[in-house]
């Protein structure tokens, strides 16, 4: 489903975005004549809660999930990079990010006209998918956390060797030329993929495919870690990784069910799907391990949780529970193959498997959403739903996101490499980034 934004206040009431949901032929113009809409406190309260749940996904969820997977000498640098990128994204979001993704004026690729949120007041509202509205500041905050987590996700591929300064500069450039345009294309009225009718309920394309592909490109520019893959680099604390995975799952309800922008039945559908797709994917990953002749592992369990959450993200409100379970199983099995078989074969050092899990499960989820949306499979699609057409639309959206993310990330990586360099020195890498980049140790 798609977000649309209507500035409902007097001064800006005219500059509205007439956006329509994917297949509904509703006339959004009808809203213009009405008196300025007032946000429903119930929906506002839910969206504020959902926003904070997404923050929980980042700090401490993603930070611990990633941190536990690194070696103990790089724990703090991983936590700091996740937190630092998220904070930078929040500031950039209010300065020019929101304007570039959801500004009042724009074309198919980006928008403008609300720098520093100058055009937003406490009375401003953003439309949901019905005739309700929520306060625009709440919508801005909710979307801000999406930008923040996507920026942080990318850095999972480059841990244990990227300079902190390079991670920050890359984040600023990447948000500007990759994230904001893709968010605009997919979610804003007038956006390229929005107008094509691509389905992306909570950000499978914008967040996960985007982060996965960008992470792959950046880690290729950065090069492998010293000693990879001949030296053992086991995770230093799978306990913390499991804690992080649990927090990610809890927070993901804000991410997925919050993407409905209302506390309604579709939010409930997104909620149940976020349970069952994830549960199916977690068990599937462990089954895959057994089929490969290994033991069912805790890290496999955690990886399956993430793969399932990623896969159900675009489908959360666009699928019935059974479709979500199938999607979780398929995405988990393919992501397992990508992480355990494909990566060693291709030899790139995507340290924490951002591409293998977010990229691959994201692609499966995004394309699969075009299938499970079908009413014949229990999805919410209308009678006029044509699966083949929708799947083609989904594939085009995925291809555009992959291409845009790859090219944009390459440009950002080249700029950072030229200006300040990407990698820490070999000595710092061998001593660990905690002491070398931050002057402290995680464990004393």
């Amino acid at each position, binding site marked *: 489903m798609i977000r649309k934004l209507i500035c409902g206040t007097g001064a800006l009431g005219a500059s509205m975005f007439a956006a329509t949901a994917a297949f509904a032929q509703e006339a959004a113009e009808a809203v213009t004549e009405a008196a300025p809409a007032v946000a429903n406190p119930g929906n506002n309260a839910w969206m504020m809660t959902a926003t904070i749940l997404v923050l929980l996904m980042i700090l401490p969820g993603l930070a611990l999930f990633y941190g536990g997977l690194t070696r103990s000498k790089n724990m703090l640098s991983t936590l700091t990079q996740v937190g630092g990128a998220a904070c930078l994204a929040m500031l950039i979001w209010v300065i020019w990010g929101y304007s570039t993704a959801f500004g009042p004026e724009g074309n198919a690729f980006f928008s403008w006209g609300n720098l520093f949120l100058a055009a937003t007041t406490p009375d401003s509202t953003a439309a949901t998918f019905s005739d309700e509205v929520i306060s625009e500041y709440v919508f801005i905050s909710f979307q801000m956390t999406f930008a923040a987590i996507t920026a942080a996700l990318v850095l999972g591929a480059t841990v244990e060797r990227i300079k902190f300064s390079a991670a920050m500069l890359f984040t600023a450039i990447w948000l500007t030329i990759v994230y904001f345009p893709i968010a605009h294309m997919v979610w804003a009225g007038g956006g390229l993929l929005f107008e094509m009718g691509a389905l992306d309920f909570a950000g499978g394309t914008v967040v996960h495919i985007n982060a996965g592909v960008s992470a792959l490109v950046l880690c290729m520019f950065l090069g492998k870690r010293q000693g990879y*893959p001949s030296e*053992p*680099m*086991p*995770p230093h604390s799978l306990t913390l990784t499991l804690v992080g995975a649990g927090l990610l799952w809890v927070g993901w309800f804000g991410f997925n069910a919050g993407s409905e922008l209302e506390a309604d039945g579709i939010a409930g559908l997104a909620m149940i799907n976020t349970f069952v797709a994830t549960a199916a994917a977690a068990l599937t990953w462990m089954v895959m*391990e057994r089929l*490969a002749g*290994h*033991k069912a*592992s805790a*890290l*496999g369990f955690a*990886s399956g949780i993430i793969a399932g959450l990623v896969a159900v993200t675009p489908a959360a409100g666009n699928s019935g529970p059974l479709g979500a379970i199938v999607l979780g199983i398929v995405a988990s099995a393919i992501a397992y193959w990508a*992480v*355990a*078989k494909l*990566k*060693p074969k291709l030899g790139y050092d995507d340290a924490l*498997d951002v591409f*293998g899990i977010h990229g691959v499960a994201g692609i499966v989820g995004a394309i699969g959403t075009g299938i499970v949306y079908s009413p014949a499979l229990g999805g919410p699609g209308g009678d006029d739903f044509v699966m083949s057409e929708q799947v083609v639309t989904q594939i085009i959206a995925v291809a555009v996101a992959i291409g845009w993310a790859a090219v944009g990330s390459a440009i950002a990586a080249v700029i950072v490499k030229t200006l300040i360099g990407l990698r820490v020195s070999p000595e710092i890498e061998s001593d660990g980034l905690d002491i070398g980049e931050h002057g402290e140790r995680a464990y004393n």
Partner: protein
Amino acid sequence: MAGHETGKQEGFVMKFIIAIIKPFKLDEVREALSGIGVAGMTVSEVKGFGRQKGQTEIYRGAEYSTNMLPKVKLEIAATDAVAPQVVETIQQVASTDSIGDGKIFVLDLASATRIRTGESGDTAL
């Protein structure tokens, strides 16, 4: 307390016993040794390898074989008279009849001193 194997009178009337055992056998061994009157021991967690091969760890498909396995090391000082019984007890209790059960080493012990009182010889044990 005439010297036995050493055949010398001047020194070694005590033995220092080092036993490397499987960690899960520690409690059983400690209880059995208390039962035969062993009053103290030093225990440490160690790693090593012998005939038993290491184990394989797999993280998201990346296999690492570790050739060091965790073991527990006991250090016990005993009089010559008790030492054979200590060795026998450890051997019997710590055995699981499989490789990796560990080893017991016995050394001559030249002296022992209790720090609190300054007593030395087997009264310090």
